């Protein structure tokens, strides 16, 4: 019979709270996969955190170095496995940049549209799990209801739902199926109302406000210093979005806003992501009405042998700047592939954000960072 939860303690410190080290994860319901956070607690207050990662390490980058360029694409479906389309886009565009291939406008529009669908799907998953972590279980199921519709669209176009081999180097696997744009339009007409529904449950809810306002505050300067990107950065009011800063694909053609937060707290990041879904929907609607006709493949060489050099291309993934750095030696497979995973870098902020908060806030802050362990561990 051992009751040594606090370790040996000095009798004098009985009235002062003792420090407890507690392992949150890798099998904890709200660490979004296999993140393990070592919390040092004073009562329920967090003094220190330590992230232990690598439980999902699969050596993706190394595997890709030993495959032909085209065969590398599917491996990136599995890094950020809830945003496979965005991952594919980054890699495919990077290789196209290496080859100097210009893809036809129809391909660009379809890619843009599907990536924005993926952004909505990823944000819906984030919203559902984030709300569930804070205890609002209904939002979770509402969000998954709409995500399901997006996954159905993916299935119709790409043949898979989660780990989608969405794009090919130089174009697409197939053109849009019959009636696909109508299905997209139907979804895009209703999603706005559904987003209002989620907001109705959360945005002005007193408990939600209490749980998210002033929780995990990070200033704009700190956010930049830590290299944060995506909604986590924009929640602090920094206007940086790769879609606007270095437009890729067809983003330059579209009209959309970049929502920004003010306080840099969990609530602002929530508002930013909610608004991003609306803006994504705007882009989708523009894509649908202005969808050009034309070929769906560029003239890309059958055997891909990019010229010698180093290349970097980044896209705005749902979670931040998703970059691909590829070194070519002029062979059929890359010499080095390195991903800039947004959530890996965003996770750095956890230590800073959590300090001084309570255990319950740790859960809220992990949720607001929107991490995916597949991408962090690669």
């Amino acid at each position, binding site marked *: *019979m*051992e*009751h*040594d*939860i*606090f370790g040996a*303690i000095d009798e004098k410190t*009985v*009235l002062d709270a003792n420090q407890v080290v507690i392992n949150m994860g890798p099998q904890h319901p709200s660490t979004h996969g296999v993140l393990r956070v070592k919390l040092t607690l004073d009562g329920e207050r967090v003094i220190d955190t330590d992230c232990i990662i690598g439980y999902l390490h699969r050596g993706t980058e190394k595997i890709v170095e030993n495959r032909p360029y085209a065969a590398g694409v599917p491996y990136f479906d599995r890094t950020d496995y809830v945003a496979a389309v965005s991952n594919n886009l980054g890699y495919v565009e990077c290789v196209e940049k290496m080859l100097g291939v210009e893809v036809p406008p129809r391909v660009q529009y379809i890619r843009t549209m599907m990536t924005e669908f993926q952004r909505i799907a990823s944000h819906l998953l984030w919203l559902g799990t984030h709300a569930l972590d804070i205890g609002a279980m209904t939002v979770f199921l509402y969000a998954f209801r709409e995500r399901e519709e997006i996954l159905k669209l993916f299935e119709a176009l790409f043949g898979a739902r989660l780990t989608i081999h969405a794009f090919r180097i130089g174009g697409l696997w197939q053109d849009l199926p019959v009636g696909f744009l109508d299905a997209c339009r139907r979804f895009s007409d209703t999603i706005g109302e559904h987003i209002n529904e989620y907001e109705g449950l959360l945005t002005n809810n007193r408990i939600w406000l209490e749980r998210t306002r002033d929780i995990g505050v990070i200033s704009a300067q700190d956010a930049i210093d830590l290299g944060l990107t995506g909604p986590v950065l924009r929640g602090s009011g920094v206007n940086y979005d790769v879609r606007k800063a270095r437009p890729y694909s067809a983003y330059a053609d579209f009209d959309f806003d970049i929502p920004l937060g003010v306080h840099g707290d969990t609530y602002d990041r929530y508002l930013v992501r909610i608004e991003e879904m609306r803006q994504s929907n705007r882009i989708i609607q523009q894509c649908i009405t202005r969808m050009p006709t034309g070929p769906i493949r560029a003239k890309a060489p059958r055997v891909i042998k990019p010229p010698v050099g180093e290349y970097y291309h980044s896209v705005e993934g749902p979670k931040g700047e998703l970059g691909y750095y590829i070194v070519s030696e002029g062979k059929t497979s890359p010499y080095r592939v390195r991903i800039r995973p947004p959530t890996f870098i965003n996770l750095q902020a956890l230590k800073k954000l959590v300090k001084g908060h309570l255990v319950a806030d740790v859960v809220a802050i992990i949720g607001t960072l929107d991490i995916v362990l597949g991408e962090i561990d690669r």
Partner: protein
Amino acid sequence: MIDQIIFYTLAFIIVAMSLMVILARNAVRSALYLISALLGFAALYIRLQAELLAGVQILVYVGGIMVLFLFVIMLVSVRTMEHQARQTRQWKAAVVIALGVAAELIYLIVRGGSIFVTKQPPDALLTKSQNTQVVGEALYSTYLLPFEIASVLLLVAMIGAVVLAKKKI
């Protein structure tokens, strides 16, 4: 007859549980035995038709104070307590006090009931089913001063606890 059986059973339970409170090595077990003893007292009060006291006993002691006791015990490592020496230097003083109390008790038992002044309560009180009102009236009329003194004492204790616990205000 039945009355006596009930009384002695309850008395036995209370005494046995009280003994276990001080004999148990594990503080949480001690607390459990103390809860049992307190529940035994509540049952005794019911037998004496002091239902209000019984209810208050459970509400305040079992549901309130014991919860706080357990709260504190849980914060202390029980294992270290189990390894501590059972006899401290205070044992001589303890023996003296225990003998004194025992002598007192034996004297009372030998002298029997004759030393207590027993007054049959007026029938009006007994027939009145609202024993809450009786207690309330007594507390706020006859025993108002002791009641107020107890309240002030508790307030002082509360402030003292806050000062001790919150060193940095």
